[in-house]
């Protein structure tokens, strides 16, 4: 083996090792799908109620942050769910191109046969930058944008997806309001909604 061949072999091994390391940290659609199955419970809360709760929380407990009066849903915490970070342009609902892949991975998971027919809530959360009312609107637009992308181009059945924006009313790290962990998208399986007939028609499962 000539020296340059050895170099090449070493470089190739390194490149492969690096690729593997990078691949491991990326969102894996099987992992998402597995996190979204398991608990087969129905959520009695509707998307409309959650939206209203966020707006009411600002009204009932005004202030620069909701700390001390964060919304909690013990019932929802028990459901199968997965949390992702999707990047958006500042103050905008346009998903940044570097996050296209992760939205695709969510689509792959939702197309997984084990999740067919299950209702999925797409819940957007922000950090404490910006006013609370503004953040509810922004997170709603962002959750809507993710829902829309999942439907077109990624072909997820629109009937199983609902989008909700909770703003900063459910901070994950209240001690550090501006922390990145607060900016997140939560996917929650809210129970079987449909079965599908042979020609793809939806009906209530027997």
């Amino acid at each position, binding site marked *: 083996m000539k020296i340059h061949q050895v170099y090449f072999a070493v470089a190739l091994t390194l490149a492969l090792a690096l690729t593997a390391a990078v691949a491991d940290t990326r969102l894996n659609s099987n992992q998402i799908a597995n996190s979204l199955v398991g608990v087969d419970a129905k959520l009695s809360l509707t998307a409309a109620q959650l939206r209203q709760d966020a707006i009411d929380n600002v009204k009932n407990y005004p202030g620069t942050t909701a700390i001390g009066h964060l919304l909690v849903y013990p019932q929802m915490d028990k459901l199968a769910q997965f949390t992702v970070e999707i990047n958006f342009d500042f103050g905008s609902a346009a998903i940044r191109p570097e996050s296209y892949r*992760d939205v695709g991975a969510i689509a792959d998971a939702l197309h997984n046969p084990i999740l067919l027919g299950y209702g999925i809530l797409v819940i957007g959360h922000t950090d404490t930058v910006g006013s609370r009312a503004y953040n509810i609107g922004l997170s709603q637009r962002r959750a809507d944008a993710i829902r829309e992308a999942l439907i077109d181009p990624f072909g997820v059945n629109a009937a199983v997806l609902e989008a909700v924006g909770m703003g900063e009313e459910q901070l994950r790290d209240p001690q550090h309001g501006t922390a990145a962990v607060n900016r997140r998208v939560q996917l929650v399986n809210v129970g079987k909604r449909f079965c599908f007939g042979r020609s793809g028609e939806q009906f209530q499962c027997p």
Partner: protein
Amino acid sequence: MKQTAFVFALLLLIGAVGAAKTDTLSYADAAQQLYTACRGDLQKYCRGVELGGGRLKGCLDGHQNVLSPQCQQTRAFVYASIARRAAAQRNIGDICSADIERLCGTSHADANLVTCLRGIAPVAISPQCNDAFTDTGWRTERPQQ
């Protein structure tokens, strides 16, 4: 020696073309390929355009004369693959209805149907159903439970 290399290269090429024809990309891979090939063009021509609702595709279509060749090519391939996979996933119950009745005894296009089709040798499935099943990606992307 040279001939062997040529035959090998030819086989590789046939393999690559064959794979491009028969397999659809996962949505994650499709999106990643679009991003990788079109990164610069997206920044230049479609900044702030939303991915969903056909808006990004519309932007790329609207700029097709100025896109980099690499983006131009990948864009067409990626959107075609996404459309094919989505259509197969949507219509598999319809396309495979006779096969489902004959082989699976289920009337629902659900996880049971996929498990059933996976358990059957491709030669025993009708060609249309088999092609559609391949396009869904469900043959190889196994849900782990």
